[in-house]
Every structure is written in C-alpha cells, then in structure tokens.
C-alpha cells in the first residue's frame, strides 16, 4: 500500500555498508490483481482455499522445469557477498531486501518440503512451513525485487535472485495472489495490443501529430508509419514511446534515423508494445503469448527485419528469449541479427557514415549514461561481449561533445537499477522506488558535482519513467533524464 509519507534517504558522504533495520519495508505489498485480470491470464481470481497445497505443488513443478531454481536453491552457502549489493537493501535497509534473504523466503520452504535435511531437522537448516505469514512475506518482498540481476554478478555461484523472484511470483499467481500492476498490463496487451491500452486510432493520431511536429521543427517530411506492409523493418517499441516524456523524443530519433538512412519501416498496431511483462511474473506461457504477437505482426506485415526500440526488459526478452519463445525466424533477412536493437542499427549507420551529425547541437548538454540493468546484465548488442556497454556510449559520443561516465562500480555490469524495473513501476510502490533509486542518484550526484553533468541518457522506458518521477525527490530536475535517441534526434542533419 502506498504510504502517505516517508523519508527520502540522504546521500551518503562515502559508501558505507548499510546497517540493517528489520521490517523497515514490511507491509501488505502492492495492490492485488482483480479477479477478471487474473483469470484472463489463466490464474485463479483470488486466493484459493487450498493455496498451501497448490503452492507447494507448483514449486515442485517449477523445480522440475527450471534447473536454475533447483541449483540456486541448493547452492547458496550464505557467504554474504550479495548482502550489500541490492539497491533496495541500500535504500531501505530492510534485511529481507538482501538478495540472499530474499531468496531464503523461498529457500526455507523448499528445504521444508523438498529436502531431507529440512524434513527431518527444520530448525537446524532454517526450514519453515508455508504459513500465511510466509506467503505474505513472499508477496511483499518478491515485489521489492526489480529483477535487475546485480546480485547475480557478485554471487560466487551466479545465483540470480531475479529467477527466484520470478518463480515466486509464478507460484503466487497460481494460488490467486497476483500483482495488479503487472497482471493488468498483460491483460491490456492481450485485449488492446499495448501496455498503456492505447487503441489503434489513438496510435495513428499520435503518430500523425508527431509527423507534424517534426515538419514544423525541421521542415522535413519524416514519416512514422503504422501497419505498412512489405517494408524493410518492423519497429517494436515500448508504448511509452508514443506519448511519455522523454520517451517520445527517442521515438522521433528512430524515425529520423530511418528517414536519413532511407530504410523503409513501420510500427504495428497489433504488436504496439515491446515490453513483455510475462517475464516479470515468471510465466513462460504468458511471456510466450506476448512474444508471439511480434512474430505474427512480422509475418502479417511481410517485413524483412525486426528492430527493438529503447526498452530494457523488452530487450532482454527480445535478445535472449524471442528466438526461444517465438522462433525460428527463418522468414526474415538472415544477414541481420534477429532481432536487432535500434542502437545497433544507429551505430552501424554512424560508422558507415550514413548519418550526418552535428555534435554541437548538444553542446548545451553535459551527458552521462545510465546502463539499464536488463540491457547490461541480460543481453548484448553487437558482435562482442560487452557491446551493450560500448554501442550506446559510441552513439552518445558521436552525437555530443561532453560525455562523462559515472563511477566505475555503478556502470556496465555493476550498474544500479533505476529502482523501478521488474514490475514495481507503480504508484503504490513509490516509497520503494524512491529509496531504491538512492545508489543511482548518488552516482549521478558525483558526476553532477565533479563534471557539471546536466543530463542522464538512458535506453529503457522504465528507467525514463522512473527517473522522471524520482529525480525531484533527490533535488534534481525531472527533465534531466533523456533518451539516447533524443541526442541523435537533436544532432542529426536531415535532408
């Protein structure tokens, strides 16, 4: 539940290890999904009577389906390496936000019902019965994880709390206790085609308006086509790109890039959403159903390539899972990566000299780059490992003269999540979101103070929305967050 008031954490003068404050974030968790939403995703409408039995069985089923779950639940030695790595732990100091403690909420039940040691000596090995209290803790604390994978980078066994929280949410859904925000959005995708529930006529209207804006601004006819058959590229982008700031400036950037490169492209009104919230709730079935829309749109529109816009978790599902869920894509042009990220496209075009850029157009900005967690730790761009860090920075450096990275332990694969990923970008979790942003805000403060940085660029719809909301809590301006393709858009010389 949203708390009316909470303290915004203070910047720490130097990075101290957080002191723990037990139960600092104990609560009822985010709003629970309504019955009809639950049912449209294939789950019980509300908490079923025999939830305990069903939850334990579901856990057993997942243990057989996912090696990750079994290995991760068995392997943890409680070394403590992860205990100071989670941005929610740092921001809230609630010990259950330590990655290992978050995993233990599930692990204690796994041990009780699925291991000999836990069946015979529960106290000795910290095994616990699945009581209502435990279930409530699951609901509360597995919705305080943004599935950013930072802990898995630092774990000696690579234990990924994101995987564990996905499994926990799948179990919660299967007993009828789903989260309103995620499940409503997935239901909207099924019904209307995108997360925001933006219907086709509204989408067309918006895009036409944007075309007019660009014309007014630049004097050039740059198109934002929708449902055009037989074009080269289908662009799948988060629906926030259609109307939210600063996302929309990124979308204009993509349009200008395609225009300038002479690549024909289209959006799809059927698959007008890149994000796949099926991943957040750990549901293979729902993730697959959402992903298949993209395959169908590509087939229907007879395109040759699929390109994804700036969206972190979407890019994870696209890069890592799309081939698995909706492949094989043998009907597309095999000379290009399937799917491709818009940054890969733009960077290739810049390298080929296909785009004319005037860096000085961005001279009033001093820019830093926020590595979005799911791009950084769950995907790649380009042909070499780490391309996901290099390519966006190359684009920024090609479009503006002043670029400064944040401290090393807060970027690349050690990047801090914005605090809003993985299905927590909802107002009923605003306290969590503000507190979880602390480490990123500290890193931003560092480059603001030391290099006079004015803007932070990002390539994720969630990051952009989250920062727009939380920057003011830390004394920054909400418009200091920008899209990477906004820099491209401002620097590009159209003809």
């Amino acid at each position: 539940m949203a708390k009316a008031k909470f303290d915004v954490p203070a910047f720490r003068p130097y990075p101290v290890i957080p002191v723990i404050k037990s139960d600092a974030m104990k609560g009822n968790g985010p709003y629970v999904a309504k019955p009809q939403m639950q049912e449209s995703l294939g789950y019980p409408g509300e908490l079923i009577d025999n939830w305990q039995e069903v939850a334990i069985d579901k856990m057993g089923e997942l243990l057989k389906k996912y090696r990750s779950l079994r290995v991760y639940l068995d392997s943890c030695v409680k070394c403590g390496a992860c205990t100071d790595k989670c941005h929610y732990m740092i921001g809230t100091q609630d010990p259950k936000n330590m990655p290992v403690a978050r995993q233990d909420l599930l692990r204690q039940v796994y041990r009780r019902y699925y291991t000999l040691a836990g069946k015979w000596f529960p106290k000795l090995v910290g095994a616990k019965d699945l009581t209502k209290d435990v279930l409530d803790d699951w609901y509360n604390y597995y919705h305080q994880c943004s599935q950013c994978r930072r802990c898995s980078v630092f774990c000696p066994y690579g234990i990924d709390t994101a995987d564990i929280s996905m499994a926990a949410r799948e179990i919660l859904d299967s007993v009828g206790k789903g989260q309103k925000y995620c499940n409503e959005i997935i239901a909207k995708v099924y019904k209307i085609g995108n997360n925001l529930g933006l219907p086709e006529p509204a989408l067309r209207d918006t895009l036409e308006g944007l075309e007019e804006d660009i014309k007014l601004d630049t004097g050039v006819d740059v198109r934002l086509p929708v449902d055009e058959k037989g074009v080269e590229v289908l662009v799948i982008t988060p629906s926030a790109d259609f109307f939210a700031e600063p996302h929309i400036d990124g979308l204009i950037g993509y349009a200008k890039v395609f225009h300038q490169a002479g690549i024909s492209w289209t959006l799809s009104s059927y698959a007008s959403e890149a994000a796949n919230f099926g991943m957040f709730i750990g549901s293979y079935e729902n993730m697959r159903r959402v992903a298949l829309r993209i395959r169908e749109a590509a087939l229907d529109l007879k395109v040759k390539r699929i390109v994804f816009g700036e969206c972190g978790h979407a890019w994870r599902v696209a890069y890592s899972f799309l081939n698995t869920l909706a492949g094989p894509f043998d009907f597309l042009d095999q000379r290009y990566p399937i799917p491709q990220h818009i940054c890969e496209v733009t960077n290739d075009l810049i390298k080929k000299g296909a785009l004319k850029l005037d860096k000085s157009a961005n001279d009033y900005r001093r820019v830093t780059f926020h590595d979005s967690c799911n791009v950084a730790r769950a995907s790649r761009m380009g042909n070499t490992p780490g391309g996901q860090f290099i390519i966006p920075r190359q684009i920024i450096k090609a479009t503006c003269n002043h670029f400064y990275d944040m401290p090393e332990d807060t970027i690349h694969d050690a990047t801090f999540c914005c605090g809003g990923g993985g299905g927590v970008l909802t107002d009923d979790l605003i306290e969590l979101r503000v507190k979880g942003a602390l480490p990123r805000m500290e890193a931003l403060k560092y480059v603001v103070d030391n290099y006079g940085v004015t803007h932070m660029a990002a390539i994720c719809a969630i990051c952009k929305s989250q920062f727009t909301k939380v920057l003011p809590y830390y004394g920054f301006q909400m418009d200091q967050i920008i899209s990477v393709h906004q820099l491209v858009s401002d620097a590009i010389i159209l003809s």
Partner: protein
Amino acid sequence: MYIMGFWTTFYAIAFYLATLFLVIGLAYRIFQYAKTPAPLKVPTMSAPLTLWGVVIRILSEVVLFKSLFRSNKWIWLFGMLFHGALWIVLLRHLRYFIEPVWTWVVLLQPFGKYGSFIMLFGLLGLLVRRMFVERIRYISVPSDYLMLILLLVIGGSGTMMSFVSSTDIVQFKAFMLGVMYFDWQPIPTDKMLLLHLASVILLMIIFPFSKLLHAPGIFFSPSRNQIDNSREKRHVAPWAIEKFETQGS
C-alpha cells in the same frame, strides 16, 4: 583387543557407508541437475560467445573465485585460504591411501602439514565474520555455524596429530588400505584420530544433503555456464517443445 576390534569394525563400516552416501548422493544430485532443463538463455552478461569461453569462465570461478573477488575482498581472502589450503591438505592425505606414495605427494608433505594452519585461519575468519558482521549473522542458521565448526574440528584434530599428539600413522595406513582392499587391519584408537575420522565421516554423509552442494552446483549454474548465442542458435527445452510445438505444426 576387544575394544580395538569394536572400533575397527565401527570405523570400517562407517567408511563404507559414508562413501556410499557421498558417491551415490552426489551422483544423484548431479544427475538431477543435469536432467533438469534450463528452458531460457540466462547467462549473466557479459558472457562468453563460445564453449571454450564458458570453460574459462567456470574455471575462473572455481579456481580463482572471480565473482567473489569483485564482491567482497575479505570473504574472498578467507574463502580462498580455506579452500586452497584444504586442497593441499587433502592431496597430502593421499599418502594414506596409496602404496607406494607418489613422488609429488611426498614433495607436498611439508606444504600439506603447514597448510592446515592456513586452513584453520581461513575457517576462523569465516566464522568470525559470520558471528560479528550483522548482515551475515542475520542470514545464518544453526547449520551454517555447525558446518564451520565441523570443518574446524576436522582441521584442528588433524593439526593436533601432526604437531602435538601423533598417532601410529603406519598402523592407521594399514587400517585404511585394509578398508579399501577388504582386508581389515586394526585401527589405532587414539582419541584425536577417532575424532578426526568421525568428523570426516559425518562431513561425507551430509555433503549431498547440505549447502556443500555448491561444489557441483557451480558447474550447473545457468547464469555462469551458458553460451551467449541466443540470437544465433535457437534454445528450447524439451518440455516447452512438448507443450507448445507438437500440435501437428
């Protein structure tokens, strides 16, 4: 003679049982890990693009604790001292199981003997952290402490035998070889030796039922052992094919 006969029988049988538990238990776990599919590509990026790259990644984790090093230098240091010294001490112990003793095992002898101090130091470091670092104390349950204490007992009793109250090591080797070749010989009944062996046997038995599964686990961790090639090569689990892709399509 009667007492000696009892202990000999007891320890010989205990060794057989513990070996069975360890080998069958571990084999079962490894089989279970191996047969459970990883339906999605989830390597923690940046990940290697080739199988060789993955081999190097896993080895750097197993041998150098690379991720732990990035994570926490103290845990890395104590963990490294403990595991490194444990390997040397274990290899030194080969001399009790083979005849004649291989040259390299002979050469290892002084390192193995003094290595036990390093091992104990590492274990104590880990135990002190577990007791006094608030965050680690929070996540610890009784078995986490007992595991360290058990290892300290093993290391402590072994070190005592090496440096303070030595046992009849020739007779012990005869016992061990007798157990291995089913030709039982009497076991020396020094308390320190019996304690040492009992705790080792206990460790062997609990290995497949405890967090010691991190040893095989790391090789099966999908975030570490997967190749980053999801765009190039389609990766689908058998259960997903069965569920979604076999309706005559």
